[in-house]
């Protein structure tokens, strides 16, 4: 992997150059005191050293509303919509990169999703190393997502006046093509990078009471915990948690047809396991009618199921769900509560007669 150096002052010019090359640029920008991923038309709007964004960048791989195919209901002509526009996603935090790894795994698993594949192929990922925790809710150190070694096309590390740019792929190399204000790193750049990284590790602390490898078992042991009902009591079932989560990808599919009932589209839209009708079947039987059960399902997916199915955790520790939840249900407290329950169960001594 080659390492280059780009002076910070060159970043804007580089983005502008990419814009001239007709890339769609998406990156974090400020909105009402927070940050969101959005199209960058004016490079001055790009804020690359942001804390965290409200929503994950999954929107650019799995749009919240996506046309699968259009149809004519009378002739039965159908046309698949495989849409992908060369897009550079700039400033992706490493936790989100791990989330994209999970999405890659899931969407390519078994029946590969061509819509995802096309978007993914057209997406250029420029990630950035976080140097300190991005919020009170993040726990990326515990989830081992606070750095990334693969998946990116380019990876930036802030070294004060310059970025160290790791080139991760040919796509990454292509992004730098024809841009001259960047050069090969020297020995001393490597040295500085090592120092920056060494400092970085210090800035993060563990937030969970269990280790990553223990987590699936800890969560699994909580299957019958009374804690889920406690969460169920306060949960609003608003679904905001799953919408902002970088690893949630469940969807609903509906047909939308024009008023003459002829032309239409089959679309998929984000869905949420937190809403009441998510698991209803014929006869109106609901397999997860209780709020607590739905919360359990979410946390089981995050801490256990996804790991068992795909070998990757369903939570990357970004902290977004906890920041977004109106009643402040969050991963750190939940996982820690389950750990404490397990510890209490396993602690010998309190033998009851």
């Amino acid at each position, binding site marked *: 992997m080659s390492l280059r150096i780009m002076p910070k002052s060159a970043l804007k010019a580089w983005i502008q150059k990419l814009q001239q090359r007709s890339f769609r640029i998406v990156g974090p920008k400020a909105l009402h005191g927070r940050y969101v991923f959005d199209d960058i038309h004016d490079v001055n709007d790009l804020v690359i050293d942001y804390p965290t964004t409200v929503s994950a960048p999954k929107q650019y791989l799995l749009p919240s509303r996506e046309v699968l195919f259009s149809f004519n209901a009378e002739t039965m002509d159908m046309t698949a919509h495989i849409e992908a526009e060369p897009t550079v996603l700039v400033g992706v935090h490493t936790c989100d990169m791990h989330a994209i790894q999970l999405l890659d795994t899931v969407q390519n698993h078994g029946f590969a999703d061509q819509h995802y594949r096309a978007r993914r192929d057209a997406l250029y990922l420029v990630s950035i190393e976080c140097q300190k925790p991005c919020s009170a809710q993040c726990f990326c150190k515990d989830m081992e997502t606070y750095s990334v070694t693969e998946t990116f096309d380019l990876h930036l590390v802030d070294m004060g006046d310059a970025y160290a740019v790791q080139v991760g792929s040919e796509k990454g190399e292509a992004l730098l093509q024809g841009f001259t204000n960047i050069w090969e790193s020297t020995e001393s750049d490597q040295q500085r990078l090592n120092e920056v990284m060494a400092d970085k590790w210090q800035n993060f602390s563990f937030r969970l009471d269990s280790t990553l490898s223990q987590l699936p078992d800890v969560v699994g042991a909580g299957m019958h915990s009374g804690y889920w009902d406690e969460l169920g009591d306060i949960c609003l079932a608003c679904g905001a948690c799953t919408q902002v989560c970088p690893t949630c990808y469940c*969807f609903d599919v509906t047909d939308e047809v024009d008023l003459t009932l002829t032309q239409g589209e089959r679309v998929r839209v984000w869905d949420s396991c937190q809403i009441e009708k998510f698991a209803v079947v014929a006869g109106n039987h609901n397999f997860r009618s209780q709020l607590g059960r739905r919360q359990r399902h979410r946390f089981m997916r995050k801490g256990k199921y996804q790991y068992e199915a795909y070998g990757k955790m369903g939570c990357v520790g970004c902290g977004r769900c906890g920041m977004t939840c109106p009643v402040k249900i969050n991963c750190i407290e939940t996982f820690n509560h389950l750990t404490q329950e397990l510890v209490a169960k396993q602690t010998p001594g309190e033998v009851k007669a």
Partner: protein
Amino acid sequence: MITLLKETLSRESIYMPTPARITGMRSLTQSETLFQVELPSGFHLHHRPGQFVELSVIGVGEAPISVCSSPTRSNGSFELCVRAVGKLTNAVHKLAAGSTVGIRGPFGRSFPVERFHGRDILFVAGGLGLAPLRSLIDEVMDHRGMFGRVILLVGARSPGDLLFPEDLSRWAAREDIEVHITVERPTEDWVSNVGVITTLFNKIDYQGRNMVATIVGPPVMYKFVLPDLLAHGLADSDIWMSFERQMKCGVGKCGHCQMHHIYTCQEGPIFSYQEVKHLEEAFA
């Protein structure tokens, strides 16, 4: 002949169905209709009993429906038995013969028929559960020599709700299958058993060692039938069931069909009791 699954996979989008024609429809009960579906020429469904297809009415939506005809009786077309409960199923009931629908699949795991060879088979069908089982029953009956005793138990709410009466008579007319039917709410001319399906269990003579059971019905039925089967000595791994969950994709992506970590559409819908008995959400 191209199998439909291959076609489904080679389309630009796995979510885009293949147009197929409804060549016949026959009303079975007030809310259930049997549809005969024909794929475009050159295509073959190539399904196994227990598998389902995703059925579309373009402009309305899509839903998973079990194939209820046996692969042994396919002749280029296949059958779906649909109960009108919601948007897609009502829409398909409004179609006329000759209409075009969309089909994707077949998806999911089928009954492991090969593993039943040489064994006695008990079929337990509650309500619409007879639809997916019908495919298996005919497969078994058309290869009758490969199996031991065959017993079919069918439960329905009332005589008018009984599905496939012709098939039931066809089977009952054979010597090599025992057929028992019960209804919960009999009409005056009903001469057969009355009661829920478990009441049939005392009428049959079975013990578990050489028997496999395949049961399909509404969620509550499993709760009552399972203890009976287990009490008669059937092994957990010899009890096979089909699970119904909401499915929006059929290909393991949409998340609706999850029971714990299991995607029902991919790993099921057919499971042995052994595989799911520890899953609370399977029987919730």
